[in-house]
Structure formats: structure tokens, C-alpha cells
């Protein structure tokens, strides 16, 4: 297997993977979409909300705001706290408190105040809700690590695709990150997950080998 990087931008990566099987290339692609853990807002405590947008829609919208991932956090299911609420090791909080003072006002992702600066919205310009005079929102949002197969908000890529030439077994990859992790890190993570899976499989096989 050979990798040749074609272009490298902050959020997109193009490379050629040659001499690989379709199964491997596809596994890489699928894992990038569904298994690389990234952070996304998962729990929202709405303290006040008299806007026209319902809590559930607001929470859903916040969940879809891409936030940068700090990989030092634990996956909630693997965290030592074993708590449904989570602890500082498995969740990062962001808070939002705003009241439209005069005319109507759009609340943007930039107004989410992160507790940990490494877990903050990727873009400042994502509109969340429009408020009119006197409307007020106060909430606390908790970002957690999660995987794309659970919910699309944990998909780190906006595009992960390839084209191939069956004869030469070369795959022209395109990885476009949502900005939560750099694309090369994503690919690397995906590769690690494959190898971890293989290792896990090997361990499982070990039991059989001993018998």
C-alpha cells in the first residue's frame, strides 16, 4: 500500500491510495464517517427560553454545530465516572445566555461561551436562532465524544469519498472535515481504529489458539 498526498488544506485532504483492496479503502471511508470519535453537543440544559423556537429544536440545532474536538476527553461510555451526567473528563460545557435588547437579533455560534477553549464552535457564523425584543435564552450545553453511527452530528467528515480504477487498484480519496479535526488526523485515527479492531480480533482469536 502506498499513499501519495495530492492536496492538503486545513479542511480537505486529497490523496491517492494505491495497491489497496476495495474492502480496505471502503473500510477506511466508512470508519471516517461512522467511527472516529469527535465532540458534539449532546445534552442541553435549557434554563430559560421564551423564543419561538422550541427547546427540542434548539437542542437539535446546537447538536449540529460542529465543535472542535479535544481528544483528551474520555468517551462517556468508557469514562470512570459512570455517570449519566458525565464529569469533567468526559464532557465539556458551553453556555449561552442572551437577550435581544431592541430589535430582532440573530444568535450565532460565536455567542456560545466554551468552558474549555479547545472545545468551541468551528465557525462563528452559524445562525442558531432569531430572537425578537425581550426574548431570552439561557442554557448550558454539554459536548461529548461520540461516533457517527449513533448520530450524524458525530460524523467528523462532510465528505469522505473516493473514486477508483479497478485495474490499477488505486483509490483517489477525498476527505473533507467539518473542521472538528484536521483531515489528516481523521485519516490517521481511522487507520488506528482499523488496526485496533484487528488487534481486538486477534485477541479474540487468541482464546481459540490456546485451546
Amino acid at each position, binding site marked *: 500500500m502506498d499513499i501519495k498526498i495530492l492536496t492538503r488544506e486545513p479542511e480537505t485532504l486529497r490523496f491517492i491510495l494505491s495497491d489497496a483492496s476495495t474492502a480496505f479503502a471502503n473500510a477506511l471511508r*466508512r470508519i471516517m464517517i461512522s467511527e472516529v470519535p469527535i465532540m458534539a453537543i449532546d445534552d442541553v440544559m435549557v434554563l430559560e427560553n421564551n423564543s*419561538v423556537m422550541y427547546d*427540542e429544536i434548539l437542542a437539535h440545532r446546537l447538536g449540529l454545530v460542529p465543535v472542535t474536538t479535544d481528544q483528551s476527553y474520555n468517551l462517556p461510555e468508557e469514562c470512570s465516572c459512570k455517570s449519566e451526567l458525565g464529569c469533567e473528563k468526559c464532557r465539556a460545557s458551553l453556555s449561552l445566555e442572551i437577550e435581544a435588547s431592541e430589535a430582532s437579533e440573530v444568535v450565532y455560534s460565536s455567542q456560545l461561551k466554551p468552558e474549555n477553549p479547545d472545545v468551541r464552535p468551528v465557525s462563528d457564523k452559524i445562525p442558531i436562532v432569531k430572537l425578537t425584543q425581550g426574548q431570552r435564552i439561557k442554557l448550558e450545553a454539554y459536548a461529548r465524544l461520540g461516533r457517527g453511527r449513533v448520530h450524524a452530528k458525530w460524523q467528523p467528515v462532510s465528505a469522505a469519498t473516493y*473514486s*477508483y480504477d479497478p485495474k490499477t487498484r488505486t483509490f483517489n480519496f*477525498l476527505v473533507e472535515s467539518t473542521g472538528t479535526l484536521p483531515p489528516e488526523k481523521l485519516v490517521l485515527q481511522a487507520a488506528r481504529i482499523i488496526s485496533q479492531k484487528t488487534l481486538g480480533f486477534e485477541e479474540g482469536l487468541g482464546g481459540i489458539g490456546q485451546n
Partner: protein
Amino acid sequence: MAVTQTQLWNLAKEFIHDSGLVRQHIDSYNDFVERGLQAIVDEVAELPIDIGDYPLRIRLGKIEIGAPRVIEVDGTERSIYPAEARIRNLTYAAPLHMEMIPVIGEREGQPEMVYIGDLPVMLKSRICLLSKLGPDELIGVGEDPIDPGGYFIVNGSERVIVALEDLAANRILVDVEHTGVNPTYKAKIFSTTVGFRARIECALKGDGGVYVTMPGIPSDIPFMILMRALGFEEDAKIAELVSTAPHVQDELEASYEKSLEATNARDAMLYLGNRLAPGQVDEYRLKKAESVLDRNFLPHLGRLHSDRKEKALFLAEIATRIIEVKQGKRSSDDKDHYANKRLKLAGSLLAELFRISFRNLTRDLKYQLERITIRRHIEFSIANAIRPGIITERVQHAIATGNWVRGRIGVTQLLDRTNFISTLSHLRRLQSPLSRSQPNLEARDLHPTHYGRLCPDETPEGSNCGLVKNLALSSSISVGIEPREMVDRLRRMGVVPVDEADKKLRTTGGKVLVDGFLSGYAKDPVGLAAELREYRREGKVSSEVNFAYQPPETDDGRSELHVNCDAGRVRRPLILVENGRPRLTEEHLLQLEQGRITWQDLVRSGIVELLDADEEENTLVAMYEHELGKEHTHLEITPYTMLGIAASLIPFPEHNQSPRNAYESAMAKQALGVFSTNYFNRCDSRSHLLHYAQTPIVQTKPMEVFNFLERPSGQNVVVAILSFQGYNMEDAIIINKSSVDRGLFRSTFYRIYEAESRQYLGGLRDKFEIPEAGIRGYRGDRYYRLIEEDGIISPEAEVSGNTVLVGRTSPPRFLEEYREFEVKGPTKRDSSVTMRPSEEGTIDQVFVTESIEGSRLVKVKVRDLRIPELGDKFASRHGQKGVIGLLVPQEDMPFTVDGVVPDVIINPHAIPSRMTIGQFVETLGGKVASQMGEIVDGTAFENIGPSALGDVLEKLGFEKSGRESLYNGITGEKLAADLFIGVVYYQKLHQTVADKMHARARGQVQMLTRQPTEGRARGGGLRFGEMERDCLIGHGASALLRDRLLEESDKYTAFVCETCGTLAYHDIKQNKYICKIDAEKAVVSPVSISYAFKLLVQELMALGIAPRLNLEERA
């Protein structure tokens, strides 16, 4: 003129804005309020009060309508806006006041302005408060600024008066009936005056005689006798009146013979009298006959003695027509031709209703006054004698239920608020009064004269097909003018009235008919028509009037000129053409664009005109300018305005098989979207709101005029056509689960629950509170958990099935119930309002207000998030509907080299047999639009077309055909074939699985039969029906059959006396089985039977039949 399509569309838009989308209702209602009300009052004019010896009359003066208001229970009067009426279950109505003047002898008393009742106000009509407000002010009073109006609010619910399509009144329509040996030639006239309709029939029967039928006289009357009764005694004169042509006069021979028993007016009258009041004295018979003749025969010509001459002329005209049809000089009338149809709108229907209730009011007033004055003499006040409730209640009840006068039902309907399109379409709907159970094949067909007037696509399937129609965008309904005006003008223009016309003119000239009445003869009808039209174009004659020239069908036939002034004609606009050139110039269009002229200016200056189906018969219309020749008289404005609202949503409909467009027209009304922007302020019992509604990227021009872009109902999704593991078989669709995660097709469902604390007789009343444990009907603590001290649940509480929303206790239903326990005081009964058993959600809003009776009214709005799930229904805009068969994670979905993953996968088998090529073209268009970032125009007949779209795609680097190579997301392999993929606008339909899924193990049974209840709302069972039963019988599965139909249904142990075979019973006190017939001899055995069978036996016994059950030992 070299005009662009956009400019013509601007013109069409100007027309639609000028006439408004629901203007027909509003105009009609305004006309009723301004003229109709007064006309009905004037008909009565004076009320004679019979009080013995001193002559009192009440003279009725002006009727006036105030502004919408409500009278609260404490008597205060306040003006209200519709938003309040909707929330508080009030009626949006305005008071009517009428001037009443008592006249004693000849002396007029003091006029009194008396309140006579309330009239519901049509929203956005002239008397509606909203009609004077601008968009911001409308928002200020809680309305959606683009709500169309045109409906009523009665008891808080929005009701539409659906337009009624009826045969034109006062016209002679001749028909041939081939029922007997000889054909019958029959003329039908629906003679109609305000609120009264008489069906007059005139037939030339097999025996050659002409007979007339009319209401009030049970038998046919020979034509000649009727003519004589009307005052024309001489045979020659009658023949002369019918026609000057000898061959027509000859046909009357048989009719003379049938009328020999009455040869003069008096005898003829007596002849009629004999049918009406046989055996009475002559005077009475004559009086009776005269009154029937004046009141029931052709009442539209007047109901006085002096109108008989006109009636005779009209009758003669009827006879002429029949005879001409018989002789083949004239073809029979086409009842389905739109020239013979009129629409009855809110105004005329309300007039009918008001007239009846007003008559009741005056009758009651007369009675009251007679009673009062007899008792107390002279001292009286009219206001005290009037009961305004008569009008208020009659009118409101009729609008609220749709039960109109003369037993007509379903006149009003609850306004459809599924989405904005369904609302508009509902307001532009017409209903035909023809029975839906009869075939009426021709009446259901599309008629060429429907073009541009009614939508060819939008009609329901099934029993109402073709009977319920919808107005086309280019239609306009005439309001009408007084025909008198036209009659006078015609006279001045040289039309000779019938009785002044000489024989020559009558033989060679053309008949001039104003609103179907022969008002004279014209020497040169063709020239006259041309002259009249020119007057209209110059603005000298009202643009409401249409002129149709009907040439003679045979050499010796008569030509006719129809002058139509009446209301309810469906008309459509056309551009005038002169010498092959349109009168409309580019200059006009430019001025129109700059707002310097309006549509009305163009009408007034004779550049465009509105034609009814009658006048359109005289035209030759070119579709496009380049087709114009010397012989053309008119030019279409745009072709696509021939469609209605719903069909106008379909992009590229000309590429579809026509039924698909009809299906889509029906489905567009079920799509979820933004039905109104004041939804937080409304109390629809159920409603839906689509979260991320998008405007389509493939649009049509008309979408702009009916605000689809502001109130859309769908989303643009990437659609691939592919069979995917069989999960999209049989019209299922596959949806990308990740798209759903991202919010695709999410919607909120709202339901309103209502609770009122009523007051009962004897000072008892309902109370909102947390019911005490142990009272009758107590549901158990956990159901009352969420309600607060005041008995009402609070917003944002999560609720599930059977949760109490409003705790309420009521006094016992029957007073006897607690008489025995009087020591304890009156027992209360729990009458709390609970969630439906199968629903859940979050409390959205709670409205606490007061109803019109002054009792507390609580409305609780519950919302529920509806995320697309397996079984939810979706449809494209091409009649392609389907339910979700599988939600597939994104990584398993096929993908393109660009990383595009489809949102929806539909099955290729959905296409060939249905031939919805329009969807393909839309797919291409959507792809182009999404790549270019521009809207693609898919307007019917005038669009870029598939090949041009393909070219654009090619330029963008795509395959011309719209196909792309995709990779299998599961294996990673490239798919063997390229897929057709692109962007299509999809709609989520309101039938969601969450509203339908249902299962039952054990549950309620019906009280009467003890069988499981029916229906989801009652937690019912699923019917094991006849066919299922047949199946088990076929298999010989008797144990299962017994299990289904007896054990799991209504098993019952009956005791039967073996000796006599009747039902016995078990007496618990004596622990004995008793048969009343055999007493000691009885041998009683228990038998397992269906409870329904036991019921049958008992019911037969109640009928006096004694069924016997003969028991045998089981084999």
C-alpha cells in the same frame, strides 16, 4: 409586439392581483351586504299588524350593518378581531339594525332603529376590520399578513361556503329525451328570483302536444290553455307569438286539439282552478288559479297580474325553441357548456338563508305585536317585540353545520389548514349539486369551455370525480349589473320590442335575449354585437356584460344575440387582436411594469377583455403571437394560467401522464408545511408544522402569486433511482438516516384539547381542580401528577397517553344519583380532560379564557416532535407517493466521487407504467439549479425543457443524461450501472405512522354486544372479518375459529331449559336455576354461546317471536 414571456406573465400577474385569489367570495359577500340585505328587506317592505279595528302597519326602512363585535356575558359590547374569535370560540359577526316605522292609519310614527340580529362577517370583506389594515397592523392583531380571508369564523371554527355550480337560472334549455317510442323534446327553466326558485318544464310529447309543468299544479297543462289563461285567447295570435314561420305554426296543430275544453281566458283559468281546488266555488277556483299563475309560473318575470303578458311572450319563446329543436332547425342545448352554468357564491347563498330567517323574524314580530297590543293596547315598542335570536341563531347554525335552507347539506365546510395551498385551493373550490351516486357521465367530463376557467387536473378521484372542481388561475367571476340598463340601451340602439316588431322583422331579424329573456328583434344582430362590443371596449358599456351572437343553424332558422349581465359567470381574460395584431403593445407592458397603469386601465381602454363561455364561442383565439393570422380575434395571455392552484405547483407537468397531475393536485393538499404564520395564536384542533420548509429550487411562475415561496410545504432532496436491497419495493422509499439526524422532514404535530367549566341548572357548575381521590370516575394518582392547584397543566410538561391535562369535577348527571346519600352532600364526578390514549408530547401552550356564556374555557395545546420513521408517507410533485421502507445510515448509502450521498432512494419500477417524465425533468432541473445556485423555471408549457437542461449539465461537467457512477457504500465497489440522480422537491404527507399504529391484546368491550370495540381511539380490536373466517373454515381450523370468534370475543354462558328451549337464569339467592315456563319440570343446562347470539334471541322475543334452543349432548 415582440413581447417576452416574462412581460406576459407580468400581465397575468396583474390580472390575478386585480381579481385576487379569493375575490369571488369577498365580492359576492360585499354585494350581499351592500345590496342584497336591503333588497330582502324591501321585498317585505311593510308588515300589516292585525289588531282588530285599528289599522297598524310597520314600515321597514333601511337596514344597516355595524362593525364586528361581541357582547360579553355582563352585557358589555366590545369590537373583536378574528384572532380572539378563534381562540375564544366566538363568532366573528356584526350587528344588523333596521329602521322600523309604525304607521297607524296613514300617520307615520317615530322611526325606530332596531337591533334585529347578528350576521357573521366574512374575513377581509368590506365590513371586516382586517380589510383596512396593512401587513404590519395585521401582524399586530394576531393575523398572518397573507391570509386570504373569504371565510367565516363561527364558534371559533373557520367555515368556508363552497361555491355551488348550478345550471343558469331563467334560461331556456331544450333537451331531447329518448325514453319512450317517440322522443320527447323538453325545455327546462329554473325561474329564479331572490330566494325563490321554480322549475318550469315544457315538453313536446309523443302525441304532438306541448305541455307545461310548474310547481303547485300537480298535472301537466296544455300549452294553449296556459297561453289563454295568460290573456292570449285567439289561436292566430298565439301562433303569431310563437313564430312567423308557417312550419313552426303547423307544429302547434296538435296543441290546439288538446285545448278544446278551454277556448277563452276565463275557461282556461277555471281549467287551472279545477286542478288546484276541485269542487270549490268558481270564485275560489279562479282566485287560486290566478295566484298560482302569478306566483309560481316564471316568477323571475315578476309576480304581479301585470307581468302576465311578459310571461306569455316567454312561454311562446319556449314553445318556439322546442319546435325548432324538433324540426332540426336548432340543436338541443348542451347542459355542460359553461355558458349555461353559473356559480352561486357566499353572497347569494347567504341571501337565501337570510331571507328565510328574516321572514321568520317578521312573522314572529307580527305575532308578538298582535299579542301585546291586544292585551295592553296601543302602548308598545317594536324593539321589545323583536327577538334578534331568530336571525342570529338561524344564520350561525347554518354556517356552523352546513345545513342550509330546503334541506341542502354540506354547504359550508371546515377550512382546510393542512398547508397554505390546501387553504387557497379550498377557497377556490366548486361543487356541483348533481348526485354523486348517479353516474352523470357527461357532467363529470372535462368540457372544452372549461379551458382557462376550471383546472383540468385538480379534481378528486372516486365518487366526486368531475363534480368537485377548482377555479383556474385565469378565471374571474362576474358580479353582474342590472339588466334594465342593457335593455334600455338596446332599445336606443334600434332593437324593436317583441310586441312592436312587425312580421318582416320577426322573420328576418335576429332575436335579442337579455339574460335569457327575449327583449326584442334586431335588424342586423351581427353589426349590433360588434357595435356593443366596441362600446364595452370604449368603456361606455360595463365590462361585466358579454355579448354572444349565435348564428342560425339552418337557412330558415333565427339568429340570436345573447346579452349576459348576470352574476356568477366564469370569465377569462384575453388580449384583443385587430387585423392580426394584438392591441396590447410593448409600451403598455412597460407602463404596467413601472406601475403607471393597472389591469383595470387595460380593460377600460379595450386592450384586454374578459369573456364568458358564451361570447368565447364567437372568437378565434391564438395561443402565441407568432401564430396570429387575419382571422384571429383574440390572443391568450399565458397558457399555464389555465391550471388551478394545486396543479400550478407541478414543474414540467406537460411531460407527465395526466392522471399523475391529478394525483399530485390531491396530494399537494396533504403536504406538511407552514400553513400560517400565526400558528402560535391559533386553535386548530390538529395541525402540523414542517421544521425546515424550503422553497423548491425548481419553481413555476404562478408560485409567486399564491405565496408558495413564503409558505412552502416540502424540501429539496437528493434522489437516486435504484433498487436497494429490496427495501424500496412497491413504492417504498429509502431515506438516509443521517439526513434525518440532520433534521430532514422533521415536523411538529399540535393538538388542542378543550375544557369548559359549564354551569348547570340549579346553580351547580363544573370546577377545575385536582380531583379528590375516591370520587366517581377517579383515574388514579399518577394521571393527575402534572396538573397544578388550579387544575390546569403547565407549559413544557411532558405528557403521555391518558395523562390528565385539565382536572375537572362535575356535579352528578342525574339529581337522583345522590339523593340517597344526602348526608354526605352532593357527590362529584370526575370529568377531567385527558390526553388521547395513543398520543404523547409536550404541553406547548395553555389558553385560559372565557366563553361567550361566561364560563371558564381552557385550551391546552400539546406538541409532539415527529421525526421521519418507518412507514411515514412522502411524495414528489408528480403523483409519486411512497412510504419509508428503511432508514439507512450514511456510510451504507451509495456515494458519488464528489461525496454526494442521496437523501432518498426510489425504486426504478415506480416509473415505466406511470410515465411521470416530469419528475425526470425536475431531477435534471434540480441538479442544474443546485449547481448553478439559481432557480430553474419549470412552469408548464413555457420552460427550458429537458434537452437544454442536459446541455447545461454537460457544461457543468456532468453527464448529459443526469446519470452518475456511484459506489456501493457497503462493499465499496463501483456499481455496475450509472444511476440517475438529482435534486427533487419532496413533500411529507400528513399521514404519519405515529397517528396510525395500533395493536391490542386485551381491552375494552362494547356494552351492548360485549364484543371488542372498534377503532384506534377506543383501543379497539382488529376485526377478524368474514373473509378471514372463510379462510379458517377452508383450512378446517375449527379450534382456531372458535378461539377467534367466541373465546376471544364475546363468550357467554347462557342457561337454557332443555324442556322448553327458552333461556333460563340463575337465581343467586336460592342458588337455583329457574325456568319461568317449566318451573319444576325444568332441566337447566349451561351453554357457551356468543353474547351477541343471546342478544339476538332476546330481541326476537321482544318482537313476539319465541325462538327455541334444542340442546343435544355433545357428540
